[in-house]
């Protein structure tokens, strides 16, 4: 199998895209650690991953102590991951004129600073083994912008620059850093879109449908497996054609 004997860590694996990524990497043979913000969420992850030798863990990506606890915990259990998928993310949509400093900060912290925190915590293990894949989940909004999402767009654009810089720092150690940028995917995050907005959206998508979480998971697997070994600093857009880079 493609990812046999590899440990993969997927943040935000309780639902949506992260869950699909965790399942896909596990099916490809990886020991997958999936994270959720609550004990019950972590338990639910263990339920679907244990058949593959993986498990759920509690993690708040905005909290340094929580990240450190995870590092320590994994060292003792599965071992440190060679594959890190930074998927956890939130939105807090508002027009800038109505956006509070908290709305801004929370989104930047969860979607961007968390990637700094997680990459720094886990890259050490990858440096040692001279082998690693960091895959950051961005968004088409990071490239296109979108009214009401200045905080989210800034964070998602920011992680592209981060990934390019880090890719240059650690390339010599056999570590790749890439972004997978989903378009509109059917998850909790997009479930609240009003019907008229959805229709307007479909008009702009050449493939004329929302994406499925599995579409993103396949792209992540492509980058995590041997197939992605010569790709680094790249952003892979998976959006049905709504934005062509």
């Amino acid at each position, binding site marked *: 199998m493609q990812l046999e004997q590899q440990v993969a860590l997927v943040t935000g694996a309780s639902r949506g895209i992260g869950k699909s990524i965790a399942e896909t990497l596990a099916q490809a043979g990886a020991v997958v650690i999936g994270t959720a913000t609550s004990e019950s969420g972590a338990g639910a992850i263990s339920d679907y991953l244990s058949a593959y030798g993986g498990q759920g863990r509690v993690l708040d990506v905005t909290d340094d102590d929580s990240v450190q606890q995870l590092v320590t915990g994994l060292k003792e259990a599965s071992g440190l991951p060679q594959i890190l998928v930074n998927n956890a993310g939130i939105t807090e949509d508002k027009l800038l004129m109505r956006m509070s400093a908290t709305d801004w900060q929370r989104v930047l912290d969860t979607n961007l600073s968390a990637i700094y925190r997680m990459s720094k915590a886990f890259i*050490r293990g990858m440096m040692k083994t001279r082998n690693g894949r960091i895959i950051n989940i961005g968004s088409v909004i990071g490239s296109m912008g979108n009214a009401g999402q200045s905080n989210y767009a800034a964070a998602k654009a920011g992680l592209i620059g981060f990934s390019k810089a880090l890719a240059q720092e650690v390339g*010599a150690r056999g570590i790749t850093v890439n972004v997978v940028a989903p378009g509109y995917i059917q998850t909790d995050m997009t479930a609240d879109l009003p019907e008229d907005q959805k229709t307007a959206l479909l008009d702009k998508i050449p493939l004329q449908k929302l994406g499925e979480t599995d579409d993103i998971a396949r792209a992540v697997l492509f980058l995590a497996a041997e197939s992605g070994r010569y790709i680094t600093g790249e952003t892979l857009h998976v959006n049905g054609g709504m934005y062509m880079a």
Partner: protein
Amino acid sequence: MSDIENKVKEIVVEQLDLDVSASELNNSASFVDDLGADSLDTVELVMALEEEFECEIPEEDAEKITTVQQAIDYVTANV
């Protein structure tokens, strides 16, 4: 050679993948200028020292460790 000196040199030889043995390593050798290390190598070297001697070397101090002797001195003084 003291234990610390010996251990530090072993780590340097291993981390920088040098073709000399620890005992042949010159104390005044600079990691970058004499031993061919790049910036990432020096970061990894400090990480390896931290691990071996179970200590945390703050960034300000790490920057000042540029030769074999400085590494030995630092570990001797701080561990």
